C-alpha cells in the first residue's frame, strides 16, 4: 500500500514504443486513412504488433488486465492517429461491461471474439437497462460489417444485445472516419442478456468507455499542441517566433497543464479500477472524462489558432484534430450522462486519498 503516481517501468516503456509507432507509422498514414475510411495495412500492423488490446480485458476473460497500461497506450497511439482507434482498439470501451458482467462465461466469449478481431463490440450508454427494448442508436460502429454483439451500460445494469439483423446506416461524422463511419440503429434491442447491477458496478461499465475516450482526447490534444509548438518555434511574426510572444507561450503552457491534469486523472482512475475500487475509479474516471473533454477542446482549438489561416486548411493536420476532438467529446453519452452520474453521487462521493 502506497501512494505513488509514477508509472511502472514496463508501462513507461510501452508508452515509449507506442509513441514511436504513432510518430513513425500512424501519423504519416492518418490523412490517407481518413480518406480511405480505414487504416492502411502498415498502420493496422503497427498497432497490432504492440499487442495492447488485451490490456483492457480482465484476466478471467483471457486478457492482460492492466487498465493503466491500456490508458497510457491508447493515448500514445492517439497522438499518431485517433481516427482508426475506435475500430482497432477492441474491446477498448466495451471492456467496462466485460469487467462487471455477472455471466463470466459470456464475458469470456465476448472478449475472445473481440480479441480475435473477427468481430467487435460496440458500446452504448443508456439510462436504464430495461430501456434496451425501446431501441437506441450506436454511432461510429467501426467497420462496415455489423458487430457480433453490442454491450450496453445503463445506470442500473448492463445488457448484451444480439448484433444479428441490425440496420447499419451511413453516419454524418466530421471526423474519426478511419474507424468506418456507419451508425447502427438498434430498433428493438434484442437483448441476449440483461443484468441489473449495484450502482458502483454499473458505473464501472460506464467509466471504462470514458477512460478510453478521455485518453484518446488527451492524445489528440497533445498532438495538436506538439505540432503547434514545432510550428510556432519557426514561424516568425512581429519579429519573433510565434511562441516567442508571451501570450501564445502562456496559452501553450495552460493547454499543456490541462492535458496533464486530465491525463493524471484518467491514469489514477484506471489505477483505482484495476485495484477493484469500483466506486473510487468510476467517480474519478467520470470527473477526468469531463476534464479531458475540456482539455481536448482547448488544445485542439489552440492547435488551429497558433497556425492562423494555415491551421484552417487541409495542408496541416490541425484541422483534423480540431474536428476529431469535437466528435470525441460526444461519445459515450458526452457530458450529459457524466453529469447525471456525478450528480447522483455528489452528496457522498468517495475521496480515497483523504482517508
Amino acid at each position, binding site marked *: 500500500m502506497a501512494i505513488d503516481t509514477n508509472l511502472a517501468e514496463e508501462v513507461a516503456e510501452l508508452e515509449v514504443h507506442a509513441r514511436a509507432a504513432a510518430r513513425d507509422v500512424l501519423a504519416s498514414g492518418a490523412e490517407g486513412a481518413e480518406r480511405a475510411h480505414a487504416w492502411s495495412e502498415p498502420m493496422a500492423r503497427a498497432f497490432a504488433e504492440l499487442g495492447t488490446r488485451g490490456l483492457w480485458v480482465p484476466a478471467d476473460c483471457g486478457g492482460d488486465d492492466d487498465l493503466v497500461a491500456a490508458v497510457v497506450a491508447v493515448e500514445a497511439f492517439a497522438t499518431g492517429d485517433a481516427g482508426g482507434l475506435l475500430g482497432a482498439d477492441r474491446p477498448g470501451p466495451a471492456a467496462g461491461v466485460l469487467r462487471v458482467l455477472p455471466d463470466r462465461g459470456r464475458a469470456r466469449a465476448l472478449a475472445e471474439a473481440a480479441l480475435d478481431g473477427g468481430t467487435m463490440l460496440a458500446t452504448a450508454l443508456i439510462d436504464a437497462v430495461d430501456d434496451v427494448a425501446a431501441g437506441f*442508436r450506436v*454511432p*461510429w460502429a467501426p467497420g462496415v460489417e455489423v458487430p457480433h454483439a453490442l454491450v450496453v451500460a445503463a445506470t442500473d445494469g448492463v445488457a448484451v444485445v444480439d448484433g444479428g439483423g441490425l440496420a447499419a446506416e451511413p*453516419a*454524418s*461524422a*466530421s471526423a474519426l472516419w478511419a474507424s468506418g463511419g456507419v*451508425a447502427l440503429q438498434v430498433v428493438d434491442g434484442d437483448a441476449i442478456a440483461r443484468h441489473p447491477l449495484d450502482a458502483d458496478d454499473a458505473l464501472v461499465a460506464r467509466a471504462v468507455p470514458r477512460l478510453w475516450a478521455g485518453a484518446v482526447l488527451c492524445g489528440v490534444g497533445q498532438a495538436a499542441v506538439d505540432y503547434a509548438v514545432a510550428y510556432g518555434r519557426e514561424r*516568425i*511574426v*512581429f*519579429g519573433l517566433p510565434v511562441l516567442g*510572444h508571451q*501570450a*501564445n507561450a502562456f496559452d501553450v503552457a495552460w493547454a499543456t497543464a490541462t492535458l496533464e491534469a486530465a491525463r493524471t486523472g484518467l491514469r489514477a482512475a484506471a489505477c483505482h479500477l484495476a485495484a477493484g475500487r469500483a466506486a473510487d475509479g468510476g467517480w474519478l474516471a467520470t470527473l477526468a472524462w469531463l476534464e479531458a473533454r475540456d482539455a481536448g*477542446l482547448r488544445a485542439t*482549438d489552440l492547435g*488551429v*489558432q497558433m497556425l*492562423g*489561416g494555415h*491551421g*484552417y*486548411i*487541409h*495542408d496541416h493536420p490541425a*484541422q483534423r484534430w*480540431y*474536428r476529431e476532438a*469535437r*466528435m470525441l*467529446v*460526444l*461519445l459515450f*453519452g*458526452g*457530458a*450529459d450522462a457524466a*453529469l*447525471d452520474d456525478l450528480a447522483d453521487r455528489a452528496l457522498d462521493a468517495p475521496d480515497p486519498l483523504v482517508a
Partner: protein
Amino acid sequence: MELELDRSTREAIETIRGLGREHLRPLGMEADRLERPIPPDHEFFQMLVRAGYMERGPRSLDAAGGLDDAAAGDGRRTGRAVRNVLVSEEGAYWDRGALVTLPGPGLGGPPVASMGTPEQKARFLGMFATRERPLWAAFAMTEPGAGSDVARIQTRAREDGDEWVLTGQKMFSSNSARAAWVVVWATVDPDAGRNGHRAFVVERGTPGFEVLRVEHKMGVRAYETASFALDDCRVPAANLLGGEAYYAGRANRGFGGAMATFNATRPVVAVHAVGIARAAHDHARDFVRDEVPSHAARRRRRALERLADIRRGIEIGRLLCVHAAALVDAGTPNGREAATAKMYAPPIARRAIETAADILGEVGVLRDRYLEKLVRDVKMLDIGEGTQQVQRRIVARHVIGSDIVR
C-alpha cells in the same frame, strides 16, 4: 440610445432571410458536401444580380459605403453600418460560406470607399450598379510570410513611368479568383515597414496576375479562398488607391488606410460568428422542444439552461458588433470597439456551438451534417480579418498605451 427596428432595416433583414432560407443554406450545405466553392457561373448568382442584390444587402455596393454618404445614421433612423451588421448576421445565420459568395465589392469595397479618389469610386464601385452579370471584388493583404504582422508584407510595388509593377504573392484572399478587381497591398520599400505601404486596384485579366490555387478549407467552403501570384504585374498609375496625394501627407497613410478598413469591416465579420451561433442555437432549441421528452425533466432543464447560456453569448456579442458599427455611423473612432467585438464574438460563438452539440449529443449531431458543419465554420471567424491575438493587441494598446504594448 434606441433599440427598435425601423421598417427599412426590418425589411432588409427579411429580404436576406428569404434568400437565406431558399438559397444560402442549401447551397452552403451542398458546397460543404462537395468540398468546393459555389462556381461563379451558378444560376443563383445570375438570379441575384437580376433582382438587384448587388446594389443592396451584405457585401453589396451599399454595404461598402455606397457612392455617396447619404445613408449615415442621424439618430432617427438606423445607420448604414448598423443595418449592415444586422443584415450580415442574418446572412451568416443561413450560411456564412454562401453569404461571402454574394456578388458585390465585398471586402474590396471599404478601402475603395474610404481611400479612393472620386474617379476611382465611380470606376470601381460604380460597376456594381448593374443588373447584367455578377461581379465580385476582393481584398488581398496576407502573404505566405506575413499574416497577422501585416507591416511585414513583401509584395513589391515599383513605379515605372505611368505604371506600377507589382511582384509578390498573396494568399487567403476571399473571392479573388473570380474578382473583377482586387485591392492589393504592396510596399514600395520593404525596409520602410508600414510607411512603405500602398494599395492598388488590380483588375481581372491584368497580365502577371495568376491564381495559384483555391484552398481546401475545414469549413465555410462555399466561397473560394485563393492564393495568387503577381509576376511583374503592371497596373496603371490611376489604380494606385487614393492617388499619390493620399500617401504624401503624414506617415503610414497606406497602412492607416488598411487599418481604417479593418475598423469598418471587423464588426461585420464578428457578427458572422454571432449568426452562426444563432443558427446552432435554433437547431438545438428545436431539438429540445421537439425531441427531449418532458419525462426527462433533468436533462430538459439542463438543456434549457444551456440554451440560455448560448443566447447570452449571441445577444451580448451582437450588441458589441452593433455598438462598434453605431460608432461608424456616428463618425466616432471605433478602433477599440471594433477589435473588442471581433475579439469577443468568435470564441464565444465557438463555445456556444460546442454547447449546442452537447445538447444534441452524439445521436443528434450525427443525424445530419448540420451542427458539426457549424462547429467547423465558426472557427474561421477567430482567424480571418485579424486573429484573436491581433484584436487583443489592438485593445491592449488602446487601454494600456502603445508606448507599453508593442
